[in-house]
């Protein structure tokens, strides 16, 4: 009997989720033993055509990490969806957009302008920009379309399971793979590899009633290592973050940043965190409250560090007048379908 097929792919990601799987240490051998790894471009020299050659729904488990930033990643999301029985958004980038999702404070025009023009060390007198298609004597070169907006995997294709974490901790990755191998997965649509409580449940610090008169950045005070950081004025996203990670950050005196995403009943993680932070301010005076709010330089970054694409608003408002569509016409999407970079054989 043939072994179940396993695929892993990385879209807009840092590679940390690949490491997270490798970090199973000896257990990776059990995984390699159980599964037939049919696609893992980070580790081995797989090609897209290997995936295209597979029959539909033949991949039993696909761990897809990384967000969808460009047309190539979108294409692979669709392709792997076609070919996979179970598609898992593995890691926070695939689940919620992750750190790449922060790019939703900008758009293509703004990013390209910055990267290819404004940065002090860039020399680009001719304003050369990457282009989707470019003719060279040898033929045509293509690049993926760089989208204005980063999306999560589930915003592109239907997804069976979500494994949060930046990256998912070793114990949870192990648990998820073990569950797959033993055929013990919950109903599709579930978040797996995490608890149904918040990080507070994992965190062993002592928690009291919270009344804060000021918020501090972690370097500004020396916190009491045994007490809740939020109580001491250090913004910790723990109460608004799904648990199951074991609160490793808290154990080294760093506040939780929210990488496991929202707790089960929460629709918008940033909105809830914002509400909680504001609610614990110990003041009725509007001026005092303004002062406390003003002292936080980047509320968006705090609330949506990992989940901007998954939030209700998804991205910062694009002012089309500032970023007009026709300026970099070469980068405009092709009519109808997606202009795509493939390694199709000619």
């Amino acid at each position, binding site marked *: 009997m043939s072994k179940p097929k396993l695929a892993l792919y990385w879209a807009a990601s840092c590679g940390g989720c690949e490491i997270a799987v490798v970090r199973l240490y000896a257990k990776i051998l059990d995984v390699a033993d159980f599964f037939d790894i049919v696609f893992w471009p980070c580790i081995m020299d797989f090609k897209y055509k290997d995936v295209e050659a597979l029959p539909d729904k033949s991949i039993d488990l696909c761990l897809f990490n990384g967000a969808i930033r460009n047309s190539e990643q979108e294409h692979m999301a669709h392709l792997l969806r076609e070919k996979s029985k179970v598609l898992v958004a593995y890691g926070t980038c695939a689940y919620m957009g992750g750190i790449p999702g922060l790019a939703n404070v900008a758009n293509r025009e703004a990013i390209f302008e910055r990267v290819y023009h404004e940065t002090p060390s860039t020399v680009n007198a001719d304003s050369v920009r990457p282009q989707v298609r470019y003719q060279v004597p040898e033929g045509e070169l293509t690049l993926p379309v760089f989208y204005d907006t980063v999306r999560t995997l589930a915003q592109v294709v239907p997804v069976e399971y979500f494994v949060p974490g930046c990256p998912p901790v070793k114990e949870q990755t192990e648990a998820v793979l073990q569950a797959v191998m033993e055929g013990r997965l919950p109903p599709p649509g579930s978040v797996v590899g995490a608890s149904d409580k918040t990080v507070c449940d994992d965190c062993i610090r002592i928690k009291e009633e919270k009344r804060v008169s000021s918020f501090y950045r972690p370097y500004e005070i020396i916190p009491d290592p045994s007490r809740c950081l939020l109580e001491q004025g250090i913004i910790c996203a723990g109460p608004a973050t799904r648990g199951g990670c074991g609160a490793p950050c808290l154990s080294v005196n760093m506040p939780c940043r929210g990488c496991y995403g929202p707790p089960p009943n929460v629709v918008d993680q940033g909105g809830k965190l*914002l509400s909680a932070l*504001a609610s614990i301010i110990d003041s009725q005076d509007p001026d005092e409250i303004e002062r406390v709010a003003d002292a*936080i330089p*980047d*509320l968006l970054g705090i609330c949506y560090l990992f989940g901007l694409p998954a939030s*209700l608003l998804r991205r910062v408002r694009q002012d089309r007048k500032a970023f007009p*569509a026709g300026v970099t016409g070469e980068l405009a999407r092709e009519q109808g379908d997606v202009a795509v970079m493939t390694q199709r054989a000619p």
Partner: protein
Amino acid sequence: MVVPSDNHEPRIVGFLCNWCAYQGADLAGTSRMAYTPNVRIVRVMCTGRIDPTFVLKAFSSGADGVIIAGCHPGDCHYSEGNYKTTRRIAFLRKLLAQMGIDGERFRLEWVSAGEGAKWAQIADEMSAAIKEKGPLAWRENLKEA
């Protein structure tokens, strides 16, 4: 079948507390004060119930503006709910500014049960101000260029 409006009349969602602002809006009704139909009201028991998520949901679902109206400070039917609202709105306003939704589209007002005229005036003012700014059209914002 509801036809989307063509004339860009703003759609404003109002979250009004049951005891003060909602009653004030009712008073505007019993007094037959005429004002814009552009504000649609969601009743909550206290503005303290308002989760910033509701406001984000309103904007992401197509609202051009959101207004929260509750009891004057000190008069909250539940003692202090509106103070908590003040704190949350202060933070939310900063977040919305970073998201590119400017302050005129999001208002926090205190309207007592006797201030029907004030409610009508606020509704008209906000509708006019937002009409001038134009629709927010958040779903358009998500489209690729």
